């Protein structure tokens, strides 16, 4: 047990207690949390800063509006419904089309108007929000994912998570939906997380249910070495989120749309730790390097250059000297 703990510490793996005590509690002042906890606020903030986000079709704020849901949805064949304050992807429904009076979910299952209404009122009553507060339901553009991911995702939309520490991208992964995850890009629901080389934007090996994999379990295509398009833009956009929210340690979730390119989906003030397994590397040495150099990392260009110089895949080698 102690040997394992020691080995992990040597790898620089960040644990939940350490993340909370050393990073999120320290660098993320609580008064900034509402900016990222409410996706509507985040969206408006990002739009104002000129960052690309999926188009908002409508917001349902009170129970009375649920009756008008079918009218609101009429012009759209496909859309996404999500709770404004949801966490971990819970409560998100992706509708890909219609057949007569039913909606087709990303998984291929059908849902009735009544089922959709109930889901929205569940969102409003706070079922998916942190602490059970009353919530809003957002209805927005369904991202048409980039064909690069066609072979390595099962339904749903893969998304890209980049950890930004003091404005510097420190680690990234792409989350690939599987049959098990019901088309959702959530690791705890069974999606694959594949690490990304920050310097080149190429995928490394992946993790599926805490297990290292190199192939997608449903499509059996290799998930390593895939070049993510628009990588520069992705890094650029995500690093700008530091100025957007002021949170020192945050996770930025982006998607690649076929026509619109990278879009920011949401920001996370307490990003998960599985990204370390996906990258086969610990976060701690990278965070410490950034902390040490943070005085020289003010300009966006400097921060991006620092990331590509220090956090390339080859520097995952544990023999690399670590920051103090």
């Amino acid at each position, binding site marked *: 047990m102690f040997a394992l703990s020691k080995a992990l510490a040597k*790898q620089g793996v960040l644990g939940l*207690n350490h993340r909370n*005590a050393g990073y999120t509690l320290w660098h993320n002042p609580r008064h900034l949390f509402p900016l990222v906890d409410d996706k509507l606020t985040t969206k408006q903030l990002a739009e104002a800063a000129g960052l690309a986000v999926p188009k908002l079709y409508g917001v349902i704020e009170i*129970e009375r509006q649920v009756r008008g849901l079918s009218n609101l949805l009429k012009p759209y064949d496909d859309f996404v419904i999500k709770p404004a304050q949801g966490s971990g992807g819970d409560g998100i429904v992706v509708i890909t089309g219609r057949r007569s009076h039913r909606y087709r979910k990303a998984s291929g299952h059908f849902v009735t108007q009544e089922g959709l209404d109930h889901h929205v*009122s569940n969102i409003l009553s706070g079922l998916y929000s942190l602490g059970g507060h009353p919530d809003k339901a957002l209805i927005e553009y369904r991202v048409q994912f980039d064909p690069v991911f066609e072979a390595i995702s099962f339904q749903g939309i893969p998304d890209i998570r980049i950890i930004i520490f003091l404005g510097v991208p420190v680690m990234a992964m792409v989350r690939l939906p599987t049959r098990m995850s019901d088309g959702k890009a959530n690791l705890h629901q069974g999606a694959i997380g594949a690490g990304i080389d920050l310097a080149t934007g190429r995928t490394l090996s992946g993790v599926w249910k*805490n297990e290292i994999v190199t192939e997608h379990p449903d499509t059996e295509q290799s998930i390593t070495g895939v070049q993510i398009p628009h990588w520069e833009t992705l890094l650029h956009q995500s690093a700008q989120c530091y100025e957007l929210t002021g949170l020192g340690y945050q996770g930025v979730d982006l998607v690649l749309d076929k026509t619109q390119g990278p879009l920011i989906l949401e920001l996370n003030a307490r990003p998960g730790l599985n990204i370390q397994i996906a990258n*086969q590397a610990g976060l701690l040495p990278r965070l410490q390097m950034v902390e040490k150099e943070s005085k020289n990392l003010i300009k966006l260009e400097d921060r991006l250059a620092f990331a590509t110089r220090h956090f390339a895949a080859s520097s995952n080698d544990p023999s690399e000297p670590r920051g103090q």
Partner: protein
Amino acid sequence: MNKRHLYLLVLSLSAFGLGLFVYKAAVLQFPLVPQTQAELWNVEVHLTFFAKNKPVKASLALPRNTRRYAIVDENFISQGYGLTTVKDDENRRATWSIRNANGKQHLYYRATVRRVEVADLHTEPRMPDIAISPLLGAQLAAAQALLADIKEKSADATTMVAELFSRMKHPNADPNLQLLLAKDYSPENKLELATDILDLAKIPNRIVHGVRLAEFQRQATIVHWLQIFVKGEWKSHHPETGSPDIPSNYFTWWRGLQPLMDIDGGDKLAMTMTVAPNQEEAIQAAMYHTQLATPELLEFSLFSLPLEAQAVYRILLMVPLGALLLLVLRNVIGIKTFGTFMPILMALAFRETQLLWGVILFSFVVALGLGVRFYLEHLKLLLVPRLASLLIIVILLMAALSILSHKLGLDRGLSVALFPMVILTMTIERMCIVWEERGASESIQQGLGSLAVASLTYVAMTIPYMEHLLFVFPELLLLFLAGTLLMGRYSGFRLLELRRFKALTQ
């Protein structure tokens, strides 16, 4: 810098707590281990009633020295009331009176009794008078028939009483008994009938009421038994077992058919009786030392509180121990539970139900509740109405479980009533949501995790040694506080995280 601040705070808290503890243990000689057999008991009766701007007279039966227990100290707390105590050859009674009172009134009687080992008092009990049975008409005929039947099947007065009690256990089997008891099968009514029948048989007898001095009881119940006079001495009979033996830890309070308490000029008379082992002699001695050395320490200690409040703090002071354990299980081991403090509340409920029954009842209620909750899912209810209906269903389930287990003769099942139902409702709701979103195994895992943590917390919170230690030395809580503060900055791996990140070391 900030960490140094924390360490300093932790250090001073532990130094102060530990210092006081050592001073009390070493200098004032407060005992570190509880005495096994308490010989001194505090019994406190707390009377409450509502006065209506009129003269009030309230009376209470008082205990007197018995063969087994001697009253060493007693006092009455009653502001503004006049107090008289009357003694006849059987009982003592206290009467409080006041010219004018209004609103809720509180009266206290507190006695300290000591176990005495004198086998016999020298006074020879004299032959009591035989009362005349008040039974008349059909009742008299029924009683005589019953008596004849019992006499037939017994050899002497002792076996006769045993036979009578064994019949009273199943009153429906005997039409005579049914008539005599008139559908009131309470122990008191049965005892009253027993005296009437024994009067008819010309056997001197009396009812005795008392309390069991065995453990801490926040709400002690009065127990009743019967004594008959044979061969020059009083013999006790336990109405439940019929055996001619009363455990030696039963303390006689009063005798006869009089009620324990009585009120004139007020209403809603209620009583709580608290039984507590007296702070053992070791503590008494320590308190004496304290009185000499630092009287302030005693003035502001838990021992200065009334017994009822002391009883509450005995339990409350164990909660921090549970919290500390919970902290370790969650943040160092990494066990997931439903709700942060839910396991502690469950552990407190387990105190009343005992562990095994607690776990069984909890599993039952949660499993049944989950079944109902899955059904409610189809109705597509909004969140708050859904939670409220689930709460009502949980209470109904608890009532049904109580009735069912009572019918089966499992009286432990009654204690399900003490479960925190709101916590149960939220647990069921969260389990259901996790079930739907993360799958059954994750949900059951978290449920079992919560139950395991609750059980461990219960075990920790009921260690008698810790209870003694924390009650006598509450300053140890400062050490607990220091520990939790320190844990607040613990940034090492959680034990279950090691398994999760294991793939990284290969």
